[in-house]
């Protein structure tokens, strides 16, 4: 009886899952497909075709020459690397202080830190915008990066991981006369590497996709990140009708994260399920 039921349910499950997989994949297929259709061919298709017989890479050339896509790309790489590195330094030091060092008021400070996790970005972004404007930091990388650095949640995540390192290691190191900083770099960081890699990747994804803050503090194209770039391409880039070139730009922008994901699949999924939310 159970077997019989399984026979009917299993194929249904697969049909259902495949249907959702198609819904997920179709936009990606459409984006790649459109990006290799010729400009003329695309615009003559009143009924869109699901395939193309004469793929072209011309759109990719257009995407890099007609709009400063390469610049957006380089800006985003720089922004992502710099923000993530500063975040790592700040997070590791703070997590170490909470996990391993004793100081007066530690618990109070930690509770205050945790309560900051509840504060939505929308609430603080207004003043940050005013601060950065008043400091004349609009259209600079400093203005882009500094307010994007802090992540209370990652400090918390790393502190929890640091605390799992046995105390004995610390005492042994102390007996040997190892300094705290050296202990942190030689023992703690290597042991907690998986967590550190996870938060690095999550932060990098967040940086790559950030849109709101960069939009507020940059209006000079030379400082646009890819999200703002794509928006400006859409509104006045190739001329509104050159959709294939737009899609080529979209492919170029999407590719790095998809590659990163395919390589670090398990780490990213484990990291997100440990408490990452989007944005």
């Amino acid at each position, binding site marked *: 009886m159970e077997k019989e*039921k399984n026979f009917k349910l*299993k194929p249904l499950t697969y049909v*259902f*899952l495949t249907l*959702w*997989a198609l*819904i*997920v*994949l179709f*936009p990606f297929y459409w*984006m790649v497909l459109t990006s290799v259709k010729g400009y003329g061919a695309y615009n003559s298709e*009143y*009924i*869109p075709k699901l395939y193309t017989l004469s793929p072209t890479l011309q759109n990719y050339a257009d995407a890099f020459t007609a709009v400063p896509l390469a610049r957006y790309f380089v800006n985003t790489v720089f922004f992502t690397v710099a923000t993530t590195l500063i975040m790592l330094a*700040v997070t590791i*030091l*703070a997590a*170490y202080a909470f996990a391993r*060092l*004793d*100081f007066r008021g530690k618990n109070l*400070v930690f509770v205050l*830190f945790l309560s900051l996790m509840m*504060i*939505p970005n*929308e*609430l*603080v972004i*207004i*003043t*940050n*915008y*005013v*601060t950065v404007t008043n400091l004349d930091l609009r259209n600079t990388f400093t203005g882009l990066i500094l*307010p994007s*650095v*802090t992540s*209370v949640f990652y*400090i918390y995540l790393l502190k929890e991981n640091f605390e799992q390192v046995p105390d004995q290691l610390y005492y042994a190191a102390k007996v040997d006369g190892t300094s*705290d900083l050296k202990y942190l770099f030689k023992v703690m960081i290597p042991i907690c590497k998986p967590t550190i890699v996870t938060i690095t990747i999550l932060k990098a*994804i967040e940086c790559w*996709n950030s849109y*709101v803050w960069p939009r507020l503090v940059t209006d000079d194209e030379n400082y646009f990140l*890819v*999200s703002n770039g*794509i*928006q400006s391409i*859409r509104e006045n880039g190739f001329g509104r*009708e050159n959709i294939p070139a737009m*899609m080529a730009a979209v492919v170029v*922008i*999407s590719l790095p*994260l998809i590659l990163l*994901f395919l390589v670090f*699949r398990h780490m990213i*999924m484990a990291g*997100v399920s440990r408490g990452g*939310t*989007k*944005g």
Partner: protein
Amino acid sequence: MEHKNIKAWLYLLPALLFLGVFMVYPLIDVFIYSFEESYNFASQTYTGTGSYNYSYVLRDPYFLQALKNTFLLVVITVPVSTGLALLISVGLSSIKPLRQLYQTVFFLPYVTNTLAVGLVFMILFKRTPYTDGFVNLMLSWFGAGPIDFIDGSYAAKMFVMCLYTIWIVMPFKILILTSALASVNQTYYNAARVDGTPAIRVFFRITLPMISPTLVYLVITGFIGAFKAYSDEVALFGTDLNAAGMNTIVGYVYDMLYGNSGGYPSYASAAAILLFAIVLTITCINLLVSRKHVHYIS
């Protein structure tokens, strides 16, 4: 001890500086802004204090439109995406072959740039003089349409907006639910099998109660996320969301702050605080309701 104290604070110093300047100070400041009337950006002066900013925002038709859009988005997408994610996760947990592949595919939207893929959605749904777009082609197979989803009726635009939001939030929900389902103690299922309990009953009596804390977590984070919707809408309808009639509360805050309609940090602050109050209230209600119905095990 004194020396140790100083060292610990030195380790904390960078974090404290960043959080102080870019989180704690702004948090206090935003409340002050919201009560300062007709604050001027350039001269940094204001004419008085009071609740005028709040009453202005609450009467602003753009804010009311944004409020309506956001509420509709929340009310539609949170239940639909959570339900759909539950179905998909149960399906995923019941199969062995290809499970990894499906999981990888389902997670893809999480790692995509919302602005970029939103553009693809726009093209799939948009009608132009040159083409009705792919979705309208599909509709025509069933003898329906064509409908302009991007510049057309409110319902059509709302439909695309909800669809895209659901597409974007599904990966997170599926991931969390599949790991919750995997962690349900197998003993319960074995006991049910011995008793010959029907699958539907097993689902409602064992699976659902066991994963209910996860569902509550997803509903709450879903509510918070949907209330803060903004980039997805920009991706679909462009930066002038007020003109498209598809603005959200967060979009209203940014429009007040910046851009053609910007330069009013006081109104932006009042709107942001209203948003925070709404989210906080709904989270508390969620927690209170769930406390009665959720089965927690230590």
